[in-house]
């Protein structure tokens, strides 16, 4: 008798439980931004959940280096979350072509984004978009304003002024002129080559010419940035060959180095670590050029797993992502990741505002090897890491680096054959 009662009771409870589950949807978010976990949990998720009853979010980030391969395996196995944070360009495009990301072209919020912003998550012809553009990162140089004041240095705007400043810091001898290492290799390519190169290959024009096969990596426009990097190595600290990325960050935030070739994503971390005044300047322009360019790289989008059972709720979340509310919330919560939507955003952080202000003065472009030209093996983007580090170490001359990259690209990319 009692057994039956218990059984009925249990069944009833179980039924109630499933009833509530059917109404409440939890969206799991896949991301590589494990640095942002507290920002999502404390600011973004509560803001969304407060406005949307019945939908809760679960932010599940992993280590950046593992993200692409792990996400691919999870999508293949059908165990990936509902919401997918999208890498820019080919990695996500492939997922879309395999039918693993939902088509979001008809999302109302898409109207808030420019074509350039959408390009990173659109098909090559631009007809279909599959991720909501969320953030871009801007390259430039962050400097220690106290050291600059102490040594009486002006913020450089041209290449000659830039090297004059570096010479002055070196001559003084109290500080390392520039904090950068090549042990992890990617800094050399990303914060070095892609950062300063934009002024040599003229931003989007040069990038388009490379994709079309009209310009070759052995041309001066692509080799000259390597020559600059080769000159940089005399201004880096002792043993920069085995200096890692965190080493460089610490050198700068401890006040031992004057200039840090940066991406805007550093801002939040530097704010926490450094107790001195910081300023920023865009990549110095070479003599005899007018206008300037910045690497304003579309870095992060957010899309919807096509196999997710919660398509409706997912779209509601994505619509919210494209709202002005999210753009302001995100931009101020993560200073240094700049929203790509046309929303009017005011940043409280002056350093972040400085970076953002360059969009008015200079033309934006993205990193040169991310779209189309890194589709084959060998992978041009990965090769450029090794090449830039080799040039700075002195293993290769700038010309050899250009030739190595060109021969790799020519081996599989038709417009260059």
């Amino acid at each position, binding site marked *: 008798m009692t057994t039956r009662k218990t059984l009925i009771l249990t069944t009833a409870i179980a039924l109630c439980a499933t009833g509530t589950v059917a109404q409440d949807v939890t969206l799991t978010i896949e991301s590589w931004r494990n640095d942002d976990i507290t920002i999502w949990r404390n600011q973004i998720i509560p803001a969304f959940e407060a406005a949307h009853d019945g939908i809760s979010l679960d932010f599940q980030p992993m280590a950046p*280096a593992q993200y*692409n*391969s792990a996400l*691919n395996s999870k999508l293949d196995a059908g165990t990936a979350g509902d919401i997918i944070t999208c890498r820019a360009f*080919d*990695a996500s495009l*492939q997922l879309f072509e*395999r039918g693993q990301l939902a088509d979001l072209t008809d999302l109302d919020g898409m109207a808030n984004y420019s074509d350039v912003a959408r390009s990173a998550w659109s098909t090559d012809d631009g007809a279909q978009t599959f991720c909501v553009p969320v953030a871009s990162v801007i390259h430039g140089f962050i400097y220690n304003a106290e050291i600059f004041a102490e040594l009486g240095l002006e913020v450089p705007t041209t290449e000659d002024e830039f090297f004059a400043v570096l010479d002055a810091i070196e001559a003084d001898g109290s500080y390392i002129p520039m904090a950068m*290492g*090549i*042990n*992890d*290799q*990617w800094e050399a390519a990303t914060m070095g080559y892609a950062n300063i190169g934009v002024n040599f290959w003229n931003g989007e024009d040069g990038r388009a010419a490379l994709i079309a096969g009209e310009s070759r990596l052995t041309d001066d426009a692509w080799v000259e940035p390597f020559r600059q990097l080769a000159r940089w190595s005399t201004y880096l*600290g*002792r*043993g*920069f*060959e*085995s*200096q*890692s990325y965190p*080493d460089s960050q*610490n*050198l700068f935030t401890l006040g031992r180095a004057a200039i840090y070739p940066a991406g805007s994503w550093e801002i939040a971390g530097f704010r926490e670590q450094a107790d001195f005044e910081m300023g920023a300047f865009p990549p110095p322009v070479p003599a005899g050029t007018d206008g300037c360019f910045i690497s304003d790289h579309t870095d992060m989008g957010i899309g919807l797993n096509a196999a997710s059972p919660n398509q409706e709720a997912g779209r509601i979340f994505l619509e919210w992502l494209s709202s002005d509310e999210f753009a302001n919330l995100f931009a101020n919560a993560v200073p240094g990741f700049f929203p790509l939507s046309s929303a009017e955003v005011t940043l409280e952080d002056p350093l972040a505002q400085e970076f953002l202000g360059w969009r008015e003065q200079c033309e934006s472009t993205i990193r040169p*090897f*991310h779209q189309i030209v*890194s589709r084959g*093996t*060998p*992978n041009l*983007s*990965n090769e450029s*890491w*090794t090449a830039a*580090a*080799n040039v700075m*170490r002195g*293993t290769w001359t700038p010309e050899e680096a250009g030739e190595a990259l060109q021969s*790799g690209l020519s*081996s599989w990319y038709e417009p260059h054959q």
Partner: protein
Amino acid sequence: MPTARTPRRPIRWHIAVFLAPAVLIYTAIMIIPLFGTLNLSLFTRGEGGTREFNGLANFATLFGDPRWSGAFWNATWNNLWFFIIHMLVQNPIGIALAAILSSPRLRFAAFYRTAIFIPAILSFVIVGFVWKLILSPLWGVAPTFMDTLGIGNWFAPWLGLERSALTTLALISVWQFVGIPLMLIYAALLSIPDEVLEAAEMDGITGASQFWKIKLPLILPTIGIISILTFVGNFNAFDLIYVTQGALAGPNYATDILGSFLFRTFFGFQLQLGDPHMGATVATVMFFIILAGVSLYLFGVQTRLRRYQF
């Protein structure tokens, strides 16, 4: 003539029953994946993501394409150098330390034994991180220490230079694992009966010559086992390289060994997407390299080793 009927021997089920768990588990987690890998290396991803059979074409690419074969042979030679350093440094030091530790007159032997063995139980992540810090040109102990000794000019950012990075990593690995040969040799030395050593002493063989003439020949089989363990371990190594130098095995692929090459190929890296089929091809070649090394030892060396029964 009445032929004595040989009684049919009962089928000895218990053998099968007792073997079954081991055979089943070993098959499930070793044999099937191994053949799965071999099988995967014979396919390629066709248009539209289908899997297509293409025979030995992956192997032809690996050995024939200048890029693939360049990377492969670079990794193989690096791996061989990694192994040679272990054989030349780790094992002789292990044997020497074991010989010293087994000396009955040594005090605090248990302490030394433990201290030397401790790195072997540490995680690669810790070892890699600690050594990266020690050797760091910015905050490392090594440059400061060498400065106080007056040889600061000899310091170089070893992990960042092509000519020294691999050797440095190999020596770090030696530091970590020198306890393993030490323990095995130590045990072998202890198992040599006292009568043998006393007989040697009666004949006037003592001290160093006792080690070379009596003890070393007796522990040769153990040294053989250590060599083969080192070989298999080195050609499967990956962790230390990944932790200290990352998946691109910098500087300029100078520390790329077969394990890191396999990782990059199979799982991809950054913008490079993984290729399970080429990855399986590399894994298959690694399997055959290790198989060849082990066979060489088993048939070429071990059968000739003389064993002594006490």
